[in-house]
């Protein structure tokens, strides 16, 4: 048996580094398309302000992207370092989309990002736009392959266990690709990324409008962001993740945990809007229920039932007992007693082997587990319900808030009066963190809600870890915390610095801070107050060294 403290620490390390990584991913996914839109307008109209917009938001994109790459390295190393049994057990299936992600997507994105930043003077307009576009395609394809890998962890299709190699092996690459869970996850995740990019640009643009500077730049940026953002938030909400909850036991458990539905209710089920779920009591205290709503949300119908957690646990108990038999025959086969009878008996129960392995937490040999151990394994065949329940509600709340905000922003922007609505601009500014809250809680629901499994129904988290000591992982976790905190502070410092500076950081001489400086230099101290808007002509004192279009 593995040291349980080591497993806990490994989980903390993976969870914290993965969630930290996902602080940077959604902004990359969304902002890159906003850059494509802005640069397309520049190429089509030739108006310089759109090139400046692409360059400035591209600068913030770069600050974010650097940490996305940095923290992504950790993700790749960590499977092998901390989850070596997982790596062996599922590498045959899970490794393939990761490797293809590198070949097909990450190469594309990373190769062209260098030219995006440094190729302005060396590429034609159209070439540069193509570079930006390929970078966007690359980043989004990258998300697709990662979510195919993650979708397989939730709903492991297209694969079968082999007792000879003692691992899961791929049986159909197409099934792996077309996994319904992966598909809905991809749409949901990238659209959430688009919302993040939109809220980021809208929020910072709102700040410039509140300050009354670089208005032309800010209004155009805001327009692009709210248009793109509204379309995206509608996709996130309408195409939600729910349709992925119908396939596979793990997804069903997750759905029941999200709703804290302990007993199976006859269709259409009620939705628990509020309450305090307790795994101990197998009940939700102070539950406030809305009739019919769950049935509609979860099954999109009024006549399908959502199975409750207690019934799911009863099913798990049956499968755990079947898994014990599978484990027994697996041991015989591994010892070399390879005959038709043992194979037949093993294959009959093979689908429940993972449930048998849940007992590994309590006994070295699951085939000989006691009744008490079986009951303990049944108890932890579902996740802790309360965190899943609450994280989901926070995510949904954040989504609804952003829908409201983006709708208002879009409306007032279309009426061209958004600059006169300081309350709305302030709401946008202070809502910049909201998409991240939604993304992080969303991932928490998906991954914490998958427990006790690393691979749904196949491999329990408790045996997936490496054979390390708690001290080893304590050391690395501590190092990550220290290093990542420092990186975060540096990143935030740069984001705030360049966010405040705005397009003046491009040194074109056309924007607020530089004009102010030029005025001071031109008129000496005590010059006339700044005009504010971006309507006045470029000051003669500013060098115009980078004006050549292509």
């Amino acid at each position: 048996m593995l040291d349980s403290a080591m497993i806990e620490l490994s989980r903390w390390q993976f969870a914290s580094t993965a969630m930290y990584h996902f602080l940077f991913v959604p902004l990359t996914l969304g902002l890159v398309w906003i850059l494509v839109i802005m640069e397309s307008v520049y190429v089509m109209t030739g108006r310089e302000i759109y090139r400046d917009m692409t360059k400035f938001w591209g600068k913030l994109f770069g600050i974010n992207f650097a940490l996305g790459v940095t923290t992504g390295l950790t993700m790749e190393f960590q499977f092998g370092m901390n989850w070596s049994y997982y790596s062996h057990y599922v590498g045959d299936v899970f490794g393939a989309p990761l490797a293809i992600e590198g070949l097909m997507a990450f190469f594309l994105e990373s190769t062209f990002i260098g030219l995006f930043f440094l190729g302005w003077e060396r590429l034609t307009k159209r070439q540069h736009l193509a570079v930006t576009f390929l970078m966007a395609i690359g980043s989004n394809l990258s998300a697709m392959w990662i979510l195919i890998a993650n979708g397989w962890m939730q709903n492991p299709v297209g694969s079968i266990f082999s007792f000879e190699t003692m691992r899961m092996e791929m049986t159909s690459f197409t099934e792996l690709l077309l996994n319904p869970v992966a598909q809905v996850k991809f749409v949901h995740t990238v659209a959430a990324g688009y919302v993040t990019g939109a809220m980021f640009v809208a929020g910072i643009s709102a700040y410039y409008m509140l300050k009354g500077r670089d208005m032309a730049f800010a209004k155009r940026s805001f327009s692009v962001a709210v248009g793109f953002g509204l379309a995206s938030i509608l996709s996130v909400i309408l195409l939600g993740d729910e349709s992925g909850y119908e396939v596979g036991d793990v997804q069903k458990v997750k759905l029941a945990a999200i709703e804290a539905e302990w007993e199976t209710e006859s269709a259409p089920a009620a939705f628990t809007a509020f309450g305090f779920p307790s795994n101990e009591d197998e009940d939700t205290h102070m539950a406030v229920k809305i009739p019919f709503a769950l049935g509609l949300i979860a099954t999109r119908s009024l006549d399908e039932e959502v199975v409750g957690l207690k019934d799911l646990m009863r099913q798990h108990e049956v499968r755990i007992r079947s898994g014990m038999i599978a484990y027994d025959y697996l041991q015989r086969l591994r010892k070399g007693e390879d005959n038709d009878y043992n194979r037949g008996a093993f294959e009959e129960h093979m689908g429940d082997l993972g449930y048998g392995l849940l007992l590994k937490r309590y006994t070295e040999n699951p085939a000989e587990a006691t009744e008490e151990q079986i009951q303990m394994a049944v108890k932890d065949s579902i996740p802790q319900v309360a965190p899943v329940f609450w994280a989901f509600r926070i995510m949904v709340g954040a989504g609804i808030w952003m829908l409201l905000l983006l709708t208002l922003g879009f409306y007032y922007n279309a009426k061209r009066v958004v600059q006169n609505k300081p309350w709305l601009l302030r709401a946008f500014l202070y809502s910049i963190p909201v998409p991240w809250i939604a993304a992080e809680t969303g991932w928490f629901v998906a991954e914490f809600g998958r427990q006790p499994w690393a691979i749904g129904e196949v491999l329990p988290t408790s045996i997936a870890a490496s054979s390390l000591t708690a001290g080893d992982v304590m050391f690395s976790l501590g190092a990550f915390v220290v290093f990542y905190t420092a990186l975060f502070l540096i990143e935030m410092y740069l984001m705030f610095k360049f966010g405040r500076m705005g397009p003046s950081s491009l040194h074109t001489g056309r924007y607020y801070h530089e004009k102010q400086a030029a005025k001071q230099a031109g008129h000496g101290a005590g010059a006339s107050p700044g005009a504010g808007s971006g309507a006045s002509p470029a000051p003669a004192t500013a060098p115009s060294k980078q004006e050549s279009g292509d």
Partner: protein
Amino acid sequence: MIFDFETLKFLWWVLVGVLFIGFAVTDGMDMGVGTLLPFLGKNDDERRVIINTVGPHWDGNQVWLITAGGAIFAAWPLVYAAAFSGFYFAMLLALFALFFRPVGFDYRSKIADPRWRSFWDWGLFVGGAVPALVFGIAFGNLLQGVPFHLDEFLRPYYTGSFFGLLNPFALLAGLISLGMLTMHGAIWLQLRTEDPIATRAKQWAKVTGLFTIGAFALAGIWVSIGIDGFRVVSMPELGATPNPLTKEVVIDPSAWLANYRDYPVTLLFPILGFAGLGGAVALSLQGRAGLGLIVSGLGITGIIMTAGAAMFPFIMPSSTMPSNSLIAWDATSSHLTLTVMFWAAAIFIPIILLYTTWTYRRMWRRVTVAEIKAQDSLAY
């Protein structure tokens, strides 16, 4: 499935080699540049020139490393599992050193403060030199065998320590890796910068190139007389279901020379290693850095293949339980996975090479201080 399992197992050994070589000659070069940064750039402008020679490309180049990691995960899951968890602290060291690169490149020149810039210059040095050293040390340990074993359910257990990895032979291998990548980076800088940086780079190319030739020769002698190899005594047929518990392996002092004895054509690899390095130094001294860069890439290929060919079919021999060693015939993924991955690699690697070449061509010129100053807000 056009290829049988046996062929695919061999092809994947070749492909992992291709990815490692791709990493070494592209990103390894950038690491060499990072290693040289604090020594070749005497002031901030010069250091920015050095950084901007690799600025547009280092990110794409780094994906060779990432893809090599992903390919090992997919093609040799047990190797990925056993090596990454076994070399836990060495991997952490490489990982944390690599952290300095994306941030170093992107953040360094965004703030003008000299202390800030100096910090990231040393960060880029660490991000270049430390991984180069660690990957060489890892290779050095693979050649000697790694203390690990597998249980009946194929869970890998590592029984060595971090400091055990830092033995004299492994450190020599680390220095070869660092030396060859630094030489490669120096020739690149000679090609892409003007004097005085280019002249300094030429000096460094000479010193690191000659050092690496000497170290490579020493390692060759050491392997011949002082390092025990491993030899497969019996195993299932090559196309069998991969199972690393079904063979018998013995330790044999001359095993790492067996392939060179049995297949003399493999001697071309060490010859390529020496000739490539020597030729690169000579061309660099003559000022023909463009050709020198290609030749030094060939030299690096020769060195990596020398180690690979000596060990083949071993990937990760076990020093404590030799029969648990992971070899190219029994540590692989299934036939289907290797097939799918083979086609993915066969389709995408040529495409990657095409567009990477295009980006190099578009950005090709000698980077100058004047240019950096003109593009102050955009350049790294």
